[in-house]
């Protein structure tokens, strides 16, 4: 049985169709990436799955239970956590307190939340930042904090929205290791939205491609990188004509 199933999901914003009839499924323990050009509807899809946006039509089934109509906090309590692309930390909470908010989903006791948060920070090697405000940190560390906060809620499926955006190659290596650690060692099923192709190609078991709100391809990273439709979506029609679709999208190595 699939762990996460999305059936014919459509989302309209007024007259704009942001997601059109998208279906896919994920198995427990998979690591799936969702890619696509800007405005393809990736974040909207995340928002629909995690309950922040009501869907226009379609169904979402998580762990055998229909969650289509649930509110975001109810979805979260069922073990589906997510991070946000732009994490607007107003600066009231410091790093460990942020992570504690996540941990408070599973416990009422401050001592327990604090102990768990400390553990997670250590695990992600950011325990030395515990007392800083999130807004004081460099972007790479902020992204790790958002991951740590989501992990605090002890999820079964973690959806990461562009955790590598705006990072330099070194930092990308770091976040790659962290994602692998979360997936391999903590046993959390992971879904990524990502623009950084090196990361997507290295880490994903499977890639789903969106363009103009529709799913245009799905498969293992090598197949996707050679898919003419995907290359067209990213680089335009002319590029495909001139290069015959032979160039792989992510081959920057």
């Amino acid at each position, binding site marked *: 049985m699939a762990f996460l199933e999305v059936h014919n999901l459509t989302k309209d914003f007024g007259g704009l169709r942001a997601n059109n009839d998208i279906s896919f499924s994920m198995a427990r323990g998979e690591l799936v990436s969702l890619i696509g050009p800007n405005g393809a509807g990736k974040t909207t899809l995340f928002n629909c799955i*995690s*309950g*922040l946006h009501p869907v226009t039509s379609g169904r979402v089934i998580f762990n055998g239970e229909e969650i289509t109509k649930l*509110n*975001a*906090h109810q*979805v*979260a*309590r069922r073990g589906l*956590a*997510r991070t*946000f692309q732009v*994490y*607007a*930390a*107003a600066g*009231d*909470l410091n790093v460990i*307190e*942020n992570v*504690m*908010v*996540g941990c*408070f*989903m599973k*416990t*009422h*006791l*401050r*001592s327990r*939340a604090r102990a768990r948060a400390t553990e997670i920070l250590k695990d992600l090697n950011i325990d030395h930042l515990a007392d800083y405000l999130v807004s004081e940190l460099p972007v790479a560390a902020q992204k790790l904090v958002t991951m740590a*906060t*989501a992990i*605090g*809620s002890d999820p079964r499926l973690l959806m990461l929205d562009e955790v590598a955006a705006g990072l330099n190659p070194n930092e990308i290596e770091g976040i790659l290791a962290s994602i692998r650690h979360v997936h391999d060692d903590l046993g959390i099923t992971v879904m990524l939205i990502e623009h950084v192709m090196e990361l997507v190609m290295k880490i994903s078991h499977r890639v789903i491609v969106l363009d103009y709100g529709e799913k245009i391809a799905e498969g293992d990273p090598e197949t996707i990188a050679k898919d003419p439709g995907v290359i067209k979506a990213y680089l335009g029609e002319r590029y495909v004509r001139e290069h015959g679709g032979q160039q792989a999208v992510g081959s920057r190595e």
Partner: protein
Amino acid sequence: MEALRNALDFSDFPRLDLIVAGCVAIVFIVFPLFPHSSFAMATMIQFLMFSLYGMGWNTIGGYGGQVDLGKAQYVGIGAYTTAVMLIRWDIPFWVSMPIGMFFAVIWSFIIGYPLFRLKGHYFAIATIATSLVLKDIFEVWDFVGAARGLEISPIKYHPPDFLRLIFREDVYYFYVILGFFFLGILYMNWFRKSRLGFQLRSIKDNEDVARSLGINVHWAKVKTYAIATAFVSMVGSFHACYIKSIEPEDTMSLDISILIALMAMLGGAGSLWGPVIGAGILIPIKSYLKEWLGAQAGLVGIDLIIYALIIMAISAFEPRGVWGIVEKIRRRRRD
């Protein structure tokens, strides 16, 4: 057990803060033993009352970031419950106070549940509106004395009456409200470390993030609003026994609501000491301006001008108030 430990544990504050807080506490306790004017005593009592109002406001307004400008309606509910029960049925303060809190909490659910669908300015305006509506109702409601208000006449009782909280000397009132004040501080110290406290701070930061961490944002706000309300109503009950004459115009006016919010913001919204600092600055100014300048020089309304200037100064320079400045300096020192 852990809740009690958290309430009594102030160890996350720097030692300097604890020394200052300890000294201030001692000054409060011994203050009545030294010679003082009745004006100073009245100002002290006002200060303690408004600190408590501010603490209540601070739960939802400070930690939760929901600017509430309608706290006066709960002052009114508390004050009227206690006054009506005492005058009509001779029910003592210690019984009517929790009943008033109960009424206030019910009312807070009735208006909080729909109101928290609103955000930002709309919420603030709606709280003003409900407060004014309640005031208007009280002004025409004969059972509670309508616009004339209610008068508790101390002659009927035998002060000092600790059950009904009827005293002739202000010093008794001072110690009662000081007791509430210390309990309020302990409660707030627990609150800021509680699960709900953390959830609110997360909501203030970013509601979508809070939601996706399993927080029922709407319910958390409604709950906290009820807590804030209970605080304010409790002090409102005290207000009735202390002032002994209540009417809608001065217990439930918009001025009170604004003053409560302003104090907490001036001192530092979302911090434990903020409301106390804010009340410590504003109440003496208010008393002085009202009693001296207002009455003697005929400058009625000058206190409102001062409030307006303070609002502008906070929003321009340091939205997190005096405590925000202290924290900023500390952060700079650390780095």
